[in-house]
């Protein structure tokens, strides 16, 4: 497979982060709000990734909430395809070229995991608290568009 070009404004959230966004008011929500509030940023997700998150959400809450969440997230994310056996978050990041992968999984966010994926793609794998602390929308916008950052341009609520 040919590697895609890296997308500095592309973000993938693993299923644990997607579910924590809904159920836990914390860094996962803060991180995804930062992505959703900028039209020039893209949240990538695969069918497998969304199915994982929906199943967990349905198991922990109720089917209707999970189904409504799925409809909402589908309208706000770009779909990526990958084989069923691949890790949904890593495969989505690789195939989309997203520069950021958010996960609570220690195995993904460890320095070793970062090293192992770097030969293949420019990907920063971080837990949401680190992303929320380090992500600078203004700096990224100005590097991409060469003009002053106008602030968030989408009312996410």
């Amino acid at each position, binding site marked *: 497979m040919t590697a895609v070009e890296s997308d500095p404004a592309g973000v993938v959230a693993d*299923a644990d982060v997607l579910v924590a966004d809904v159920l836990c008011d914390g860094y996962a929500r803060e991180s995804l709000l930062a992505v959703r509030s900028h039209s020039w940023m893209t949240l990538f997700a695969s069918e497998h990734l969304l199915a*994982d998150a929906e199943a967990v959400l349905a198991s922990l809450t109720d089917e209707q909430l999970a189904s409504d969440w799925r409809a909402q997230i589908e309208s706000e994310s770009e779909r990526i395809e990958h084989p069923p056996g691949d890790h949904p978050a890593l495969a989505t990041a690789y195939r989309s070229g997203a520069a950021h992968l958010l996960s609570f999984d220690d195995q993904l966010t460890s320095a070793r995991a970062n090293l192992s994926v770097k030969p293949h793609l420019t990907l920063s794998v971080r837990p949401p608290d680190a992303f929320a602390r380090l992500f600078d929308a203004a700096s990224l916008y100005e590097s991409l568009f060469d003009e002053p950052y106008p602030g968030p341009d989408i009312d996410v*609520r």
Partner: protein
Amino acid sequence: MGWDDLYERAAEYDISLEAIEQELSAHRKETTEEERQ
């Protein structure tokens, strides 16, 4: 429907991050076993 509505409905549940991680781990293990068969 929107995020505020989803967050409000989700707030009725008291779910920890640990519970989410455990559930996701169990779900992915089950999915992997199904794919192998």
